[in-house]
């Protein structure tokens, strides 16, 4: 601790507290043994970052990595819809931190409650014991998502807030949804919402609708329905594949309602009211199972760095935050994964969203790790010949899956001087219809297992 105070004073004297990232490690080594990186959030982004900092940190003689998460392990959202239909167990998609600890990562079970970027500390409330300030040289937040309240919300007598029935963070709610589905009967209705983009896992809600419809069909229930209330104008991922799934495979079971803006949610009556014409008229749906997935924003620890969108604008080469705090932009504070917001463009220069997914969070973590290592090592900062990607498989029944792939390269599009610079979407595509298959379903587990291992072991 004394060393850190000395170091802070030294930096302050150098007038460099906000530009710590630019100080070569040779200088840092004079006052502290190893640079410290604190990672908040142990999902796919945070776990991958912690792992790769330890693995690649040998370049600069090692990095002291602390990973903080509220939970002792991470329950993967990837494959969690297959827990809902009983194909997988929750324990089979629960990923621990033992391998990361064996790599030398210090894991702290606790909650990061606030950041003091001027002092380079993050406040931690550990699972047991008193709160303390954790010092860092670089802070990386990978907190995932939080949820936005609907305009009107009514709780049930048994409790539960507006964000208690989404199952959009895997864990207890996944089991809750599974049990709700298992209790359905003939002529009952499952109502779910698709959040306004951008949201975590673009294909996820459509995949869930398919899995639920497939389950109801497999139980031979008559008159059972799945109503999908989409806040967006159209299917947000794999439009061809999910269009085929909705209109052909699950025809008669799934009812798709686009442009459905949620106005009120009532958990007591399991009813939801939406408007599809901007508020001129409203329509209510009453469900036997209400799976309300709210609109989303960055996890709360990163909120001070968010813009009006609720997400955190970051530099695409380093994932450093762009928003100033009290007039200072802190380049040693980074946000990756679902919480961040990148400048993304298609090849024509039209703005596009870089998707929020586990695979993409892993991809971003590697870019961020490399940038931090270059920064700490004074090697030139950062690399601008970078690419990120996301791939995923989406089950549309309990034995058939489609897939989705997207690729981004850092660069500029357009004609000078009107260039758009950022992550350029160089490719986007889904499985051709004839490739939506049982082979795809089997490949899904290979993909998931390798993604789990590359992130957590």
């Amino acid at each position, binding site marked *: 601790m004394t060393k850190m105070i000395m170091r802070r004073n030294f930096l302050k004297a150098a007038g460099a507290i906000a530009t710590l990232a630019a100080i070569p490690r040779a200088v840092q080594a004079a006052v502290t043994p190893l640079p410290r990186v604190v990672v908040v959030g142990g999902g796919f982004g945070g776990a991958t970052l912690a*792992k*790769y900092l330890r*693995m*690649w940190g040998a*370049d*600069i*003689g090692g990095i002291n990595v602390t990973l903080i998460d509220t939970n002792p392990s991470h329950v993967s959202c990837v494959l969690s819809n297959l827990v809902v239909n009983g194909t997988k167990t929750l324990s089979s998609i629960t990923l621990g931190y033992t391998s990361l600890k064996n790599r030398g990562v210090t894991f702290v079970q606790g909650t990061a409650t606030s950041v003091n970027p001027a002092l380079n500390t993050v406040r931690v409330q550990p699972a047991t014991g008193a709160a303390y300030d954790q010092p860092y040289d670089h802070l990386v937040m990978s907190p995932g998502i939080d949820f936005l309240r609907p305009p009107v919300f009514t709780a049930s007598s048994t409790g539960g807030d507006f964000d208690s029935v989404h199952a959009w963070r895997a864990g207890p709610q996944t089991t809750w949804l599974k049990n709700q589905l298992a209790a359905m009967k003939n002529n009952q209705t499952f109502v779910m919402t698709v959040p306004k983009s951008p949201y975590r896992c673009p294909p996820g809600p459509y995949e869930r609708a398919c899995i639920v419809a497939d389950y109801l069909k497999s139980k031979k229930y008559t008159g059972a329905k799945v109503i999908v209330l989409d806040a967006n104008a159209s299917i947000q991922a794999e439009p061809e594949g999910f269009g085929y799934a909705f209109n052909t495979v699950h025809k008669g079971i799934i009812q798709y309602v686009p442009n459905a803006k949620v106005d009120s949610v009532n958990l007591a009556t399991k009813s939801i009211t939406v408007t599809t014409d901007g508020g001129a008229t409203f329509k209510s749906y009453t469900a036997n199972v209400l799976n309300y997935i709210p609109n989303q924003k960055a996890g709360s620890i990163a909120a001070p760095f968010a813009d009006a969108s609720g997400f955190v604008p970051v530099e695409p080469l380093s994932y450093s935050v762009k928003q100033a705090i009290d007039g200072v932009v802190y380049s040693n504070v980074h946000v990756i994964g679902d919480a961040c917001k990148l400048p993304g463009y298609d*090849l*024509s*220069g039209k703005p596009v969203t870089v998707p929020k997914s586990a*695979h993409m969070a*892993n*991809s971003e973590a*590697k*870019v961020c790790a*490399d940038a931090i*290592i*270059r920064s700490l*090592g004074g*090697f*030139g900062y950062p*690399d*601008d*010949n*970078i*690419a*990120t*990607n996301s*791939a995923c498989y989406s089950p549309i029944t309990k034995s058939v899956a489609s*897939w989705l*792939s*997207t*690729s*981004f*390269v*850092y*660069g*500029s*599009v*357009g*004609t000078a001087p009107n*260039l758009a610079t950022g992550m*350029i979407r*160089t*490719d986007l*595509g889904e499985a*051709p219809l004839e*490739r939506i298959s049982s082979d795809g379903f089997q*490949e899904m*587990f*290979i*993909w998931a*297992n*390798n*993604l789990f*291992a*590359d992130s957590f*072991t």
Partner: protein
Amino acid sequence: MLKILRLLVPASATLFLSLVWHSNASAGGPPPDGRLLGSQCFQCHGTNGKGSGFSTFLGKSSTEIYNTLYEMSQRPVESIMDRHARGYTDQQLHLLADYLSTLN
């Protein structure tokens, strides 16, 4: 560069890519060229290529890896890799093939 643009970019668009080269890897030196790009294959093929289930690039030469990726980028799309290979510039395909061929 013109060849790259023809391969990857519709005629209506222009894609400028910055090319910044770093010195070769050495102990205590900067990250090896291609390592970051190559690591983007590890999600599906395992950390340093040591995954299982999908085909492997371990033990293949840079030329073999590049030629495979190039072929994937040109043929009709059947698999995810046919899409992924389309997502990189030609220079990046060479760079990551060079790096992946050093793993074993």
